Each structure stands twice: as C-alpha cells, then as structure tokens.
C-alpha cells in the first residue's frame, strides 16, 4: 500500500523531540531573526517510526535477496562493521580535536592505508576522497599535478575506452582534458594497437578499468602500461572492479599509477540507497609527491596529520579528513577476512560469475567468449532477437520473480547489455535458484510470451513508472494540492 508523504502526515503542532522552549533576546542576532515560516511538518516518534518502516518495506535490498547489479558489487554488509563504526571512540570524535586526543583514529587510518598499499603494491594512498568519482578526480588531479611539475602541462588528452564508466570521461572533462575514446577489440578488451596509435606527446593519461566492465581481465595490461609510460603518460586505473582480484593480483604489479578503491564496493561498506561512499586512491612512486592533504604522519609512536598542502601536493579535496565512518567499516571487514579471506572472497566472486556463465550460456548470448570471466558476466540481447522483448522488459520480469535486475545497457560496447555480478556473498543454493528463474524467463521469452515481459513488473509495489513525464514536467518537491493547482 502507498505510504503518504510526510507532509501529508505531520503538521506544525507535532514534534518527535522534547525540548524546552527557552526565551532568547534579539541582541546577538543582528536583526536577522527568521520571519519566513519554516513550514516543516513534524512527526511524533511513533508516527516517524511507522512512516520510515513502511517506506523501507517498499525497497529491495541485499538483505532481502540477490542483487546482481554488475559493476556495483552488492555484497553482504556485515553488521559488525556497523557496530564498530558506532563506538563512541569513532562516532563521537570531532575532526578538529587536538591530534593528541585522536591517536586511535589516526592509527585506524594508518592501518587502513597499510592494507590498501599492501593489497595494491603502491607507494602512497590518499584516503580523503568521498566516493569513487571523487577518487577519480583525486587521481587525475595527481596526474595533472605531476605533469605540471615535470613541465608537461601541455598534455591535454586523456584516453578512455568506450566500455568505461561514465564517471571516467566526466572526470577527465572536469579537469579540462579532451577525452579520446578507444575502441574495444572483438574480445571485449582494450585494443593495444589502438592505444599505441593514440598515444602521443599530448596524451596525459589513460583511464582504464581492470577487470573491465565486460567482466574481463585486460590480459595485455602490462604491455599497455609500458606503452603509456613510454609515451610519458600515466596510467589511471578505475578500481571499481577490484573485488575480482583483491589479494590475488596487485595493481601496482600491472603498472598502474593511480587507482581509486570503492570502499563501498570492495570492502563491504553499505551502499545506503546511494551513499555515502569512500574512494581512497592508491598512488605510484611517481604520483605520491602530489597526494592531497590531509594525510597521517608518524613521528615515533606519535601520529599527526599533515593538513596543509606543501610543494607538489594537489591540495585539499574536501573539508576535514574524509569518510572516517567508512574507514572503520572497511578496516573491520579487512581484519575479519584477513589476507587469506580477501583472496578467497575474490576467488569465490570469480567462481560465482563463471558458474552463472556456465549454467546460462546456452540460453543467453555471451558477446565475448573464449576466456573465463572475472567477477561478472556480460550477456547481450541477441537471444531476444525477434521476440519483441527488450533487455528492459526482461529486467522488469525479473522483479516479478523476486530479484533485483542486473545492470542493463551498460557497458555500451554491446547491444542491450545485461551485466550480472553475483559477488562472493551468494551461496550455491541462491545461485541455483537464480539460474532456474533466469532460464525459465529466457525460455518463456523465446516462446514469445510477450505479455509477461511487457507488463512487468506486476508484483512490485508499483507498476512501471512514467519517467518521461517526470523529466518533462519536473515536480521536485511536494506542494499541497491547492498550491499545485495554481
């Protein structure tokens, strides 16, 4: 059942807090006391509890079922992480307390950095980026700063494969770079020859995702890295798919110069319906001098914070020190798994994706075959050809069967992409149930049962939504009926 908006429940007389009504004078307000009404409805605590519990029941979540969103790595979120992040020694400390009073916090940051550097074989890590895209910004700024320091500020081109996440070209453009797209070869990986051909004195960097967004490991990545470095450019790696190789392959060994790591993907910090994330960036020796502030410093047993950009540093990317709450969750996860467990998690993630591929590839079409996939498997819509059913329809039918759809229409290198990432969290039993559902749907689609797909979802809280109307007549906030009618 629909849940009313809070503006339809609460009013100005209701409140869910008890606070004294103190008198104040206007002496210190400089005539700036509010005159406009706040117009914020209040809910008493029972009303609020029910509103948000009911609303939540209209959401799908990892905890309710499989969430095979390719490239998003929706894995189990341990509650120990949540518990640790809420210890007063972490949750109730201010970023500007004297460093002598937050030595444990700085130790946690130092330990997280150590884990990240060990897992990637890199020279430095910038913790402060607030999410993956912010990390990309950080890494590309470090590259820009390095070029400038070397007198190579004229390099204005960034190479981006067409399979890249949208954040990659957006970040490059944000920094004023011209984005040049690199085609994939017929195997779904980056064409080394195309990279080499595109490299020049004007190229600042390549931004490459590995494993890539087709779920494939870029086998020639070492060769690409060498060519990029030889051309005087840097190699930015999008670490969104690090989950496939953590503890198994170190990106530093592949020649990367910068890579962001989504703590909210690889290290299990919860997605929360769209954040908060955390996007630390590991840096090679070449880029380390250009890391942003702040970073943790050590003087014997005493830890400190470098908060002001020195020579070469790219500066400050955010107030304070980044996503401490996420650091604690990620570090807790790392300690729980250990180096052995992280490697096993990566191996299981790869095992699960290959298992799904093996059990589905007779009915679904695999655009790039011939090598094992990594942590996700990419299908295209060829198997739906002539059925009148689209990838979107297929995805919506999955909802009716109790599953969150996979990532659709991404990457752009194939038509009607379906990118399935089970993650290591899914059991064999769950994978088998998913396979049965997917096979049954595929067979039904091929049998031409269009209605089931075109009408889907029918068993979700809502039917398909009119996105065009939302965009054409934007209604971005609640307005009471009277006001809306004007």
């Amino acid at each position: 059942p629909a849940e009313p908006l809070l503006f339809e429940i609460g009013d100005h007389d209701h409140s869910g807090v008890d606070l004294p009504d103190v008198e104040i004078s206007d002496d210190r307000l400089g005539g700036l006391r509010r005159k406009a009404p706040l117009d914020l409805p209040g809910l008493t605590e029972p009303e609020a509890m029910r509103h948000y519990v009911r609303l939540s029941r209209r959401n799908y979540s990892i905890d309710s079922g499989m969430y095979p969103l390719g490239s998003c790595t929706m894995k189990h979120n341990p509650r120990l992480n949540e518990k640790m992040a809420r210890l007063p020694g972490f949750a109730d400390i201010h970023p500007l307390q004297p460093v002598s009073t937050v030595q444990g916090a700085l130790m946690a940051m130092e330990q997280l950095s150590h884990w990240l550097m060990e897992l990637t074989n890199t020279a430095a890590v910038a913790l402060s980026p607030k999410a993956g895209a912010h990390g990309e910004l950080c890494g590309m700024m470090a590259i820009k700063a390095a070029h400038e320091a070397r007198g190579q500020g004229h390099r204005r081109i960034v190479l981006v494969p067409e399979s890249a996440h949208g954040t990659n070209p957006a970040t490059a453009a944000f920094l004023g770079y011209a984005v040049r797209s690199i085609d994939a070869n017929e195997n779904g990986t980056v064409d080394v020859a195309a990279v080499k051909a595109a490299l020049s004195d004007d190229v600042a960097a390549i931004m490459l995702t590995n494993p890539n967004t087709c779920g494939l490991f870029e086998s020639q990545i070492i060769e690409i890295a060498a060519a990029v470095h030889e051309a005087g450019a840097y190699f930015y790696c999008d670490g969104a798919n690090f989950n496939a190789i953590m503890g198994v392959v170190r990106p530093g060994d592949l020649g990367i110069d910068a890579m962001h790591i989504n703590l909210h993907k690889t290290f299990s910090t919860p997605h929360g319906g769209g954040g908060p994330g955390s996007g630390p960036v590991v840096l090679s020796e070449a880029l380390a001098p250009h890391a942003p502030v702040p970073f943790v410093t050590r003087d014997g047993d005493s830890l400190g914070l470098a908060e002001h950009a020195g020579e070469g540093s790219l500066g400050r990317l955010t107030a304070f020190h980044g996503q401490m709450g996420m650091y604690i969750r990620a570090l807790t996860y790392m300690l729980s798994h250990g180096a052995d467990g992280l490697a096993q998690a990566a191996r299981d993630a790869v095992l699960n994706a290959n298992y799904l591929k093996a059990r589905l590839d007779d009915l679904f079409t695999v655009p790039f075959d011939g090598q094992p996939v990594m942590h996700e498997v990419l299908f295209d819509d060829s198997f739906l050809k002539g059925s009148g059913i689209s990838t979107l329809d297929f995805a919506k039918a999955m909802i009716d069967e109790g599953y969150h759809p996979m990532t659709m229409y991404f990457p752009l290198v194939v038509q009607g992409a379906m990118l399935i990432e089970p993650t290591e969290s899914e059991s064999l039993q769950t994978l088998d149930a998913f396979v049965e559902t997917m096979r049954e749907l595929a067979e039904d689609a091929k049998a031409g049962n269009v209605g089931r797909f075109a009408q889907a979802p029918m068993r979700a809280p809502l039917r398909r939504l009119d996105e065009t109307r939302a965009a054409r007549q934007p209604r971005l906030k609640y307005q009471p009926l009277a006001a809306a009618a004007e």
Partner: protein
Amino acid sequence: MRYLPHSAADREHMLGVIGAGSIDELFAPVPRSVLGTFSPDLPDHQPEFGVEAHMRALAGRNHAAGDGPFFIGAGAYRHHVPATVDHLIQRSEWLTAYTPYQPEISQGTLQMLFEFQTQVARLTGMEVANASMYDGSTATAEAVLMARRITRKNKVILSGGLHPHYRDTVVTYLSGEEGLQCLSPSPEGQGDIVDRIDDQTAAIVIQTPDFYGHLRNVSALADAAHEKGALLIVVVTEIVSLGLLEAPGALGADIVVAEGQSIGNPLTFGGPYVGLLACREKFVRQMPGRLCGETVDAEGQRGFVLTLSTREQHIRREKATSNICTNSGLCALAFSIHLSLLGEKGLTRLARLNHSRATALADALAGAGIEVLNRTFFNEMTVRLPQPAVPVVEALAAKGILAGVPVSRLEPGKPEVENLLVLAATELTTDADIAALVDGLKGELA
C-alpha cells in the same frame, strides 16, 4: 570464513559444472608473473571477537566528545541525535539498498529523497534542492562551478568568512583555472567583498554564520551581486541556525549550499556527512547530482523516479554537470528523519536553545575578561586570547576539556590569527561545562 557461503564441496561442484580444474584456472587471463606472486604483510582472518577487541582498543585511544566539556565546532557540530534515527537507518531495506535505478522496487528510497529535497528547499527558502552532495565543502565547489556555467563568467570571489577548508577545496577544484579570488580571513566580521564585484563576476561566496561565528548581512550582498549580474552563493555550515535565522532564499541567495551534519549525523571525525544544495528553479538543469521527481506508474499511482539525468555522468559522460555518482543517501535519510522528528516546532526550539547556550558561553567568557570578537552569533564565536591559542588548547585537552579550535590550525603562518580561538556551544553544553572551561582558561592564562 563467516562471510563466504561456499563449503569446499560447493566449490568442487561448481568447478565441475564450469569444467575447470581449479579456481586458479579461472584466472588464466592474468599474466602468470603477477598472479599470487606476493605475500602481503597482513594478518589472516580472525574470529569476530578478535576483530572487535582490536577495534575497541583503537577506539579507546580517542577522547570522545561526550567524555567531557566540549566546545569544538568550526564546521562540524555535536548535537543530540534521537535514537530512533540511528535505529531506522540501520534497517536492512535502507542500509543495504543501492542507488534507486529500479524505481518499482525502490520507492522507499525515492520517496525519502523527494521528502528530503522538499525539506531542504523549505529550510533554505529556495525553490529546488537536489538529493544530496558529499558534504558542505564539495557542494560549495560544485556551486561555484555551477555559477560559472550559468553566468558563463569566470570570476568568483570567496569571502574571508568562508570556512578555510571550504576555500581550500574550491581552490583545488578550480586549480589552474582563472578568476578565483580568495579574500583574507576576516575574524572580526569585516569584509570588502562588495567593492570587488564587477561585471566579470560569476558569483560571490559568503558564509553565514561565518567561520568566526558572525551573522552576515545576506540581503545587502545579494543586492550588490545582482546589480552586477553575479550570483550570490550562500554557505551554511551549521544548518540548525536556520531554525532561528532568516532563510537565505528569503534574502536573495541564488544558490545555497550547506553542511547537513548537524541534523541526524554524528561527528565521526569529519565524515561521512551530507551536503545540501538548493537553488532557484531556473537553474535546475545546471545542478549537479541526483534529483528525484514525482510521476505516476502505469496504473496512475503516484510514484517517484530519479529524473533529469541528462545532466549526469552515466548518461552524458564527459558533458555531465558533475562527475558525482554515489552521494550521501544514508546521511540524507538520517537528516530527513531527524528533521521530521523536529518539525518546525522542534527545530525552532533547538535553534533557540543553541543560541541560548552560546549566549551563556559568551557571557561567561566575557565575564572572565576574555575578549569575544562577535557582536552577533548563532552558536559559535571567536575569542582573542592574550597568547597563542594552540598551547592553551593542548593544555586544556590534557585536562579533558576540548576548548575549541585555534584558528591557526586552519590558517597556519598568519600571525594575526595566532591568538584566536573559535568556540561553539550546542544544546548539549551545560553550565558545568562552561564553568569548567572558564576555570581552565583562567588557569592557563594566569
């Protein structure tokens, strides 16, 4: 391993189905030279109680804000968050959902974001608000970029009252670009920003209450900016202040950005927090970040979707208004729940209570002969000590009193701020806390 659902037998079975002899075979595309050729200097897996002991030991080495008298603000504030808020945001369906790309099974998150946008718009007095940014500082940088896109002009002037970290963040975001002017710190609330606005100016950025606690005259600045065709960006780092002070939108702001941490979110050493960004409706297509909009489903039922995504990176790629993707969904939820609990009545009382506690603090400091620079403030103020602030703060910290932020921590190398200290009070500041601070200060300054 407790998070990994496969037994050895499961793995064997799966490899059989795949037709591989081992999981290693699945890593065939990885060059042999880099596959498993290292032994990280890292421990192996541990029981949960071992991990917990490790993390508790780290936490135990920090002095929590609740452990004693506490007067630190400067962009992050210690307020009471109702237990209901933290309980609700931990519900599986909120905590472990992804960005609501599938609206039919994400109406919880979407409706919440729609409510959040409405709350932020009303609180700031603006027409539209987005579904959150990382935090106040990055929202400020995005607002500056947005103003430049809107006005197609370059020059941006940052007030001397802007939080130094915000200023530094904007500087970094605009590194290498022309036109940014950062005014000198203005601890006494002075400002010469109006004189610098010219026809080339895209925007001026002011903060109120400013970094030093002074309330700024937004209307006058709005008029001055608009006269030259520039936009006024107003930054609010203490969002609770809007329960008592006039909304920036009512005073002429074009874009309002704010740090929302004070409502619903704990201090957590600086993050995650939640950035708010609101503006006039006509600028909506230049906004960064997600927007949630109302629509209907195939049966005409009201529903909500992410909308206007042609502004965004996943659609527009290098032509996007921002590269932001993940934002602060769960912190926005905490903000929205807490603000729902407060409502107009609660927020008004909370703001008054904060101001009242700050007034008590200011009076007690002045009464002890300490120079308070502010004629106006909300819940934060700057004092000038007769000696450098850093050693005083360190000495009091050793006694369990967290006495505020020395301005020099954020503005190093500037002798004129060396003796300045910024102090905040909130509803949690007791008379005993104030007495302990004043006694402590007297002792150090004697």
